């Protein structure tokens, strides 16, 4: 644990993530204004004491919208990764542990999903299912779950042949017991790493789809759709686009820092090969 704190990437990533969770949890207290309050008197105001990040074309406080937007982005990131993990772990375990026909079928399904570039698949699904946060999350789960299934399957295939698993089986342990007590602890590390990086990716992709108009709908404050709102006022009021974009980048960066740091600490191969 001490090594984790010493790892600079983990420290930076974790600090920003904790701050973000705090902002999201206490959004009503942190935000200076109501994020959806329309005030035509203060349209397109540049940053000031009253509105630190300025106001948008409807006179809404951009800082407050960003603060509340953190709730949406973190929620989408966590739900997408939890859903993908659930599907990935179940299918990956069946595939890796039991093998045979189930393995073939699941792996062909994974190949099928991976055959379409992820952004195209997510876009086509989110676009045809119709706008909305639920459909957006479904579309992103559809592109994310495959990597978890593959990692889980691959890890199980290597762990399964180890002597301690053979020994447990020899002692009469059931499949479920072996999976839960011997295999799961050993495949936890790679899963934690890709899940952390995955949250960042999901937040980035969700913002992109919302920017295109296929995700979270107005007036809900969402970072990607705030950028879309600002496009028309780019010349007059560039701050409408600058701050939400910065928020997305910092958030994604935090999860990437964290994921990279965790990989250095958890994956012994990386510790040896890539010195820091």
């Amino acid at each position: 644990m001490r090594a984790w704190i010493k790892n600079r990437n983990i420290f930076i990533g974790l600090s920003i993530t904790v701050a973000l969770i705090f902002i999201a949890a206490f959004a009503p207290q942190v935000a200076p204004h109501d994020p959806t309050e329309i005030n035509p008197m203060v349209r397109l105001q540049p940053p000031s004491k009253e509105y630190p990040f300025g106001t948008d074309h409807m006179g809404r406080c951009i800082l407050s919208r960003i603060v509340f937007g953190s709730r949406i982005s973190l929620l989408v990131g966590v739900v997408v990764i939890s859903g993908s993990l659930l599907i990935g772990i179940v299918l990956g375990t069946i595939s890796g542990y039991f093998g045979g026909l189930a393995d073939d079928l699941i792996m062909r399904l994974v190949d099928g999903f991976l055959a379409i570039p992820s952004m195209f698949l997510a876009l086509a699904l989110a676009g045809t299912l119709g706008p909305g946060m639920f459909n957006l999350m479904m579309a992103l789960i559809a592109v994310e779950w495959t990597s978890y299934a593959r990692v889980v399957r691959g890890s199980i295939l290597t762990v399964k042949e180890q002597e301690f698993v053979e020994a447990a089986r020899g002692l009469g342990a059931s499949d479920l017991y072996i999976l839960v007590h011997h295999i799961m602890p050993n495949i936890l590390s790679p899963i934690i790493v890709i899940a952390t990086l995955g949250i960042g990716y999901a937040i980035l992709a969700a913002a992109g789809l919302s920017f295109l108009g296929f995700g979270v709908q107005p007036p809900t404050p969402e970072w990607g759709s705030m950028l879309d709102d600002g496009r028309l006022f780019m010349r007059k009021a560039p701050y409408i686009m600058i701050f939400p974009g910065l928020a997305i980048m910092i958030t994604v960066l935090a999860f990437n820092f964290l994921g990279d740091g965790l990989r250095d600490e958890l994956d012994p191969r990386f510790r040896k090969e890539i010195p820091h």
Partner: protein
Amino acid sequence: MLGYIFKRVLLIIPALLFVSMVSFSMAYLAPGDPAEILLMSPEGSPSPEAIDAFRVRMGLDQPIHIQYLRWLEKVLHGDLGYSFISERPVADAITNSFKATLKLSLVSMIVSIVVSIPLGILAAIKHNTMIDDLCRLGALIGVSIPNFWQAFLLILLFSVHLDWLPVAGYGGGDIEHMILPAITLGTSSAAVTTRLMRSSLLEALSQDYIITARAKGLPERIVIGKHAIKNALIPVVTMLGLNLGFLLNGAVVTEWVFGWPGIGDLVVDSIYQRDFTMIQGSILFIAVIFVTLNLLVDISYTYLNPRIRYESVD
């Protein structure tokens, strides 16, 4: 080796069959009746006769599995049907926009190589210094920056403030119109390649033959330039093929923001217009390109790195 390639090629068939089903079902995932939505006009809902006539014309009156098989048969003959909106052949629209995407992707690739290889080498040589830290931070920012936001920052600086480059558009495909989208599109791939070049060179530098070369008294310039970099480039070059996949993903938003008439822009527009034949065709086309690309990368990788040949095909 041949057996591996054969097995690898064979596995493409079920994947593409799955893709064809997914692309085909796009039209049915959408809420509402496509015929009714498409015929909706400012004067109100279309008459039932008009809807029926449209269904028959577009083949929408058949049971779904028949529609799929008919579509698949046509697709296999290279016929992707006609756009619901413009009624021009889908295949033509896709080929035209893919040319634009390919052009932009190649320029992005060049931008990304020119930036990433020297930076990766620099970071590895200056390992554990401030320069290394900056390169790594830059690479991490490169994968974290939203491309639509980066596009906006570039437009704001180079088009609005400095007035050096056009804001958006194709402009006959000249280089001025390509610079900003190419930088936007190339950034994430440059970031990934920088990291790979760095770690690959660091690994190469820790190998025995480098120690031998140094022990022989070869100057550092030759040790790094001739021995280490040459070997370190192998995984980087094979990764460049995979980077084309990255570029395809990035093309969705980048092309749309810059109004670059590529396949990403085509898909976004078709979804806005609910042009289902166009969506089906483009997704299928993109998947075929993507799968072929991955196959070539895999084969070249196997060729360059014999160790992988003994592992199973997964």
